[in-house]
């Protein structure tokens, strides 16, 4: 019988990393994610792993780059301002095709902003936050259990596609305590990391981990290769949750923490006899375009709700059937701006 634990979302991330075989963590303190480095600074040494409190998020992401280049599973975590600092390194990792897990327990901005729940980093996460036109896989947990399961999945996807993977959540999911079944690491067939640097023994090939391609046509070919991988991800890795969507006349699109509030509002609507459902993207990149196409073949009204001024709604609009209408409701993040279910129910009534 599997155990059931009562833990914080951030701790679930740290536990999952250890279960996934991650023994190297590099980070810099920032609220609301510091439970992750605190947990790992205590647990990794017991497993002969390495925990480094880096000089900055820039230092941390580059330590991740170096560790990952040797083929080990490694991770960093931060929150929005720190994630901005990591973007150069993430771009280099994407260009060098290095796996690695980056957790963003995002907070409100711009600038120092605040520490409240926010989804204002959607664009930065899914559109390639650094330079050069790349993507990384972005997973959006909405519960403590998903914080655990998706962190473990993040390590597998990183290794399979040789790409950085981001787990994007906020303080609602990161700080709350819920029941967790700490599932054992799934058995996944992973490609051999033949590309890793290990010291060039006589008779073996020289290994170079780099993102510099100066030869005629080399960089173009490299970019086509990267974008070919993104196409495969779009085909195979989209994940979403459908909730009461089968007969829905209006489907709410929401990810992460706000999707939980939306679920309560949906139940209120159902009680009032309104057929309302939810389509919750779990992978933000690749975006579950097909799921939106399928839902809008039948249901012509989508209400997109976010903890920002409207970001994912762009991708929703690009994904739905042509004759579907997309409405948006969101509030810029900050203290006191987390919507209550009644507020969302009003929006449902307005557009139903």
């Amino acid at each position, binding site marked *: 019988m599997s155990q059931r634990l009562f833990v914080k979302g951030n701790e679930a991330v740290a536990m999952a990393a250890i279960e996934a075989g991650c023994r190297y963590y590099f980070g810099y303190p920032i609220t609301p994610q510091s439970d992750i480095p605190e947990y790992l600074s205590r647990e990794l040494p017991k497993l002969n792993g390495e925990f*480094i409190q880096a000089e900055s998020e820039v230092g941390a992401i580059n330590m991740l*780059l170096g560790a990952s280049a*040797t083929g080990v599973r490694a991770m960093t975590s931060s929150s929005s301002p720190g994630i901005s600092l990591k973007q150069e390194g993430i771009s280099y990792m994407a260009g060098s095709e290095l796996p690695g897990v980056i957790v963003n327990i995002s907070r409100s901005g711009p600038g120092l902003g605040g520490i409240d729940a926010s989804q204002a980093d959607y664009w930065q996460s899914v559109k390639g936050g650094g330079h050069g036109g790349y993507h990384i896989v972005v997973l959006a947990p909405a519960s403590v259990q998903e914080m655990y399961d998706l962190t473990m999945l993040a390590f597998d996807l990183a290794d399979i596609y040789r790409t950085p993977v981001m787990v994007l959540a906020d303080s609602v999911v990161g700080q709350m305590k819920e029941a967790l079944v700490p599932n054992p690491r799934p058995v996944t067939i992973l490609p051999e990391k033949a590309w890793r640097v290990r*010291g060039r023994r006589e008779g073996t090939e020289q290994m170079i*981990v780099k993102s510099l391609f100066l030869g005629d046509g080399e960089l173009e070919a490299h970019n086509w290769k990267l974008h070919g991988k993104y196409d495969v991800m779009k085909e195979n890795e989209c994940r979403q949750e459908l909730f009461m969507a089968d007969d829905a006349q209006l489907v709410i699109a929401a990810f992460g923490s706000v999707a939980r509030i939306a679920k309560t509002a949906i139940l209120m609507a159902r009680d009032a006899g309104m057929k309302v459902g939810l389509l919750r993207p779990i992978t933000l990149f690749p975006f579950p375009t097909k799921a939106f196409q399928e839902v809008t073949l039948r249901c012509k009204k989508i209400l997109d709700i976010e903890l920002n001024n409207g970001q994912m709604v762009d991708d929703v609009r690009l994904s739905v059937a042509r004759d579907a209408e997309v409405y948006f409701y969101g509030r810029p993040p900050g203290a006191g701006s987390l919507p209550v279910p009644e507020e969302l129910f009003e929006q449902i009534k307005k557009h139903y």
Partner: protein
Amino acid sequence: MPQVFKRPVSLKDVPTHFCPGCQHGTIHRLVAEAMDEFGVRERTIGVASVGCSVFLYGYFDVDVVEAPHGRAPAVATGVKRARPDSFVFTYQGDGDLAAIGTAEIIHAANRGEDITVIFVNNTTYGMTGGQMAPTTMVGQKTSTSPYGRDRAKDGSPIRMAELLAQLGGVAFSARVAVNTPKNLMDAKKQIMNAFRYQVEGKGFSFIEALSTCPTAWGVTPIQANERIGGELIEYFPLGVYKDTAQWKPRIAPPAPVEQPGARAFPEFMNEI
């Protein structure tokens, strides 16, 4: 006839892209010789920086990770922590290490990472066309200090070998030059000393090598070499600034818990 001079096996048999009179190539060779002499080539992982030495992997016959500009010491930290049995060195210019990468170098050094840093100081940003660096001499004209470096506005050249020697984690710090046969022999000796610290696991070792950039300086190779022996060595004195292993074994972590079947969770995580 016995062979008395040959290419180090750690160096590839290819022509370099360095300008005539540039000493990056000479410094590459000394590093490769030291690698050969310690027999560490097969477990070496080099970390390349961004600057004229970005093609490290093209010249050294070792595995290489390319770091973003200035971040090589952080990348090397990740490599070494993950693979403590490897021999890890970074090779960085003065723009890379003493400007954009100051946080990374100071903290890798202060943590006493078991790596060796080869810092090539040519008082300018060679690769980008000879702009002012933190090591540019007061009065030196560069493409971004057309009236000469002004101490009042631009500060004074940074002496990295001395600065890093202050830090507890640094076991070895020296400044060398390759402008004369004597200095070259001494440079080789100090690179060997720096490598020895890492081979013995005794902490961070640092070599600052003064180097020419005739292209950006706008002088002939001979004049460039003379500048090293004159103005540069006067301001950046050669020598060993630290040669003492301040390295302490890390505090032993709690005994490893190896229970793949029954996983132990911290107590505060109450079962429900």
